């Protein structure tokens, strides 16, 4: 475990090299909040509530959802694997005396721990600037469930992106697919609009998928909603992590031997 913690620490330090990126990442979290503030501001002018949300409840949801989706930076993993397999430099990860998937997990942990403080600070600033009466649950059981769920959600996204990256060995060029995936993920994780606004049948289907538990349900739990789904959600996202892990093992067995280090 120690070597993986060293990898995490290295990536934490690496972030300090790109200080301007850190500041701009913080600043650009405003775009999601601004979108929510302007869109829902005009809608709530004539309404007290929409679905299960009040105006401040809605903005609180966007603050938490934006904070969680900002922390979820694993899409870089699939891009990195895709690029390196295509140009033949994926060997870098093969020769390192560490498991490749665990290496990416440790890398992601280092980056998330670093950005955690800054994204939290940004969220507090936006709450203050937009004068949001922040809604937050006070139940410890729910908070613990939401934290665990967000953690499992991030692990699932790392697994998913690692899996998709490996698929480059099979399909050669998956760059376009990765971009489409990013578009879809923004919808099904509730980053654009809360999933509760979709018809019940659609929400019912989404509940079976892992993306529901990546940012949407944790954000709802933190803002004091959908508490009855907390435990069930943990079980479902846990099952998806196990499933994804077995898919990764299969893909590794099938495709890793195809890597010749020559690029595509």
């Amino acid at each position: 475990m120690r070597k993986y913690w060293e990898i995490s620490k290295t990536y934490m330090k690496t972030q300090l090299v790109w200080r301007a990126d850190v500041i701009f990442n913080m600043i650009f979290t405003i775009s999601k909040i601004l979108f929510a503030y302007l869109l829902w501001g005009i809608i709530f002018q004539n309404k007290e509530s929409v679905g299960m949300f009040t105006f401040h409840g809605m903005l609180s949801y966007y603050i938490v959802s934006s904070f969680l989706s900002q922390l979820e930076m694993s899409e870089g993993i699939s891009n990195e694997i895709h690029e390196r397999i295509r140009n033949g430099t994926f060997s870098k990860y093969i020769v390192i005396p560490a498991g490749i998937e665990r290496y990416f997990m440790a890398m992601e942990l280092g980056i998330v721990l670093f950005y955690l403080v800054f994204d939290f600070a940004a969220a507090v600033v936006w709450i203050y600037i937009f004068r949001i009466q922040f809604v937050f649950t006070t139940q410890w059981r729910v908070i613990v469930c939401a934290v665990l769920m967000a953690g499992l959600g991030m692990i699932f996204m790392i697994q998913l992106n690692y899996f998709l990256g490996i698929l480059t060995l099979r399909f050669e060029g998956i760059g376009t697919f990765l971009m489409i995936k990013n578009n879809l993920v923004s919808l099904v994780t509730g980053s654009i609009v809360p999933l509760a606004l979709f018809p019940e049948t659609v929400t019912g289907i989404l509940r079976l998928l892992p993306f529901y538990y990546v940012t949407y349900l944790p954000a709802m739990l933190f803002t004091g909603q959908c508490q009855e789904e907390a435990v069930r959600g943990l079980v479902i996202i846990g099952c998806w992590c196990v499933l994804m892990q077995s898919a990764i093992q299969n893909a590794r067995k099938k495709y890793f031997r195809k890597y010749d280090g020559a690029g595509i």
Partner: protein
Amino acid sequence: MNKKNWRVFQELFRLRFHGLTVFRFDFFAPFFVDGSLFAIQLLAFGAVYANVDRIGSWGRGEMILYIGTFSLLNAVNMTIYFFGINSIPYKVRSGELDLYLSKPVSPLFRLTFENISPGAVPLILMSVCIIVYGIASLQMTLTLVIAAAYIFWLVLMEILYYEMEVLIRSVSLYVVSMARMEQIEEAGLDLCMKLPGIALYGVYKVIFYLILPYGIMATLPVQSMIGELNLQRTLYGIGVVVLFTAFTCIIWKNGLKHYNSASS
């Protein structure tokens, strides 16, 4: 376009087409990626309108029309000039711009048309379908005058879109790194793609109607179609395009004087 430029355009198109057909899936990449983006927006706003009747003065039909209009502006951008203009910062950094300056054709003309993407044409068709769907949802009678006014605004706003892209990338002729400018462009476009100009007010209106006028790009054509465009807004829209045309010419021409060949 004079006779010489027309011949250059034909040759550039032929070369680009040959290059694109090498990677068949990537040929339609702009269609798949941006098509999914706007389809997701339709779904997201479908969910919003399932819970509210109007956003400001706009109902579901106006919003569909807005999404279709932005999609069309983006589709023309992707088809004709995006990939060419987007390469300006790289060409400045690498010194490749030398090759453009030494040719007997306008460098901006060649940059604009050398990376045409025929694979994005289905995106234009898809956008037209969304617009027709929006008009049908509005149950409005489309007269020749309304259609002509809409097309006039589309052309005008496409020019503005082009100028914004050139303007932002021309900054690379003055500074070493312009990643932040592209981030600002991305954030502004992302926000205004989802948020019609009618939701903007105060300082937000100044930013997205004047400084980064992405807020008027799809709003004014839609307003012209639904009869919300008065003389004041018409003059303002034309004024902004004239202003940005002059600004782009000055920045580009002066920028070329700052260009010091490789590693500038």
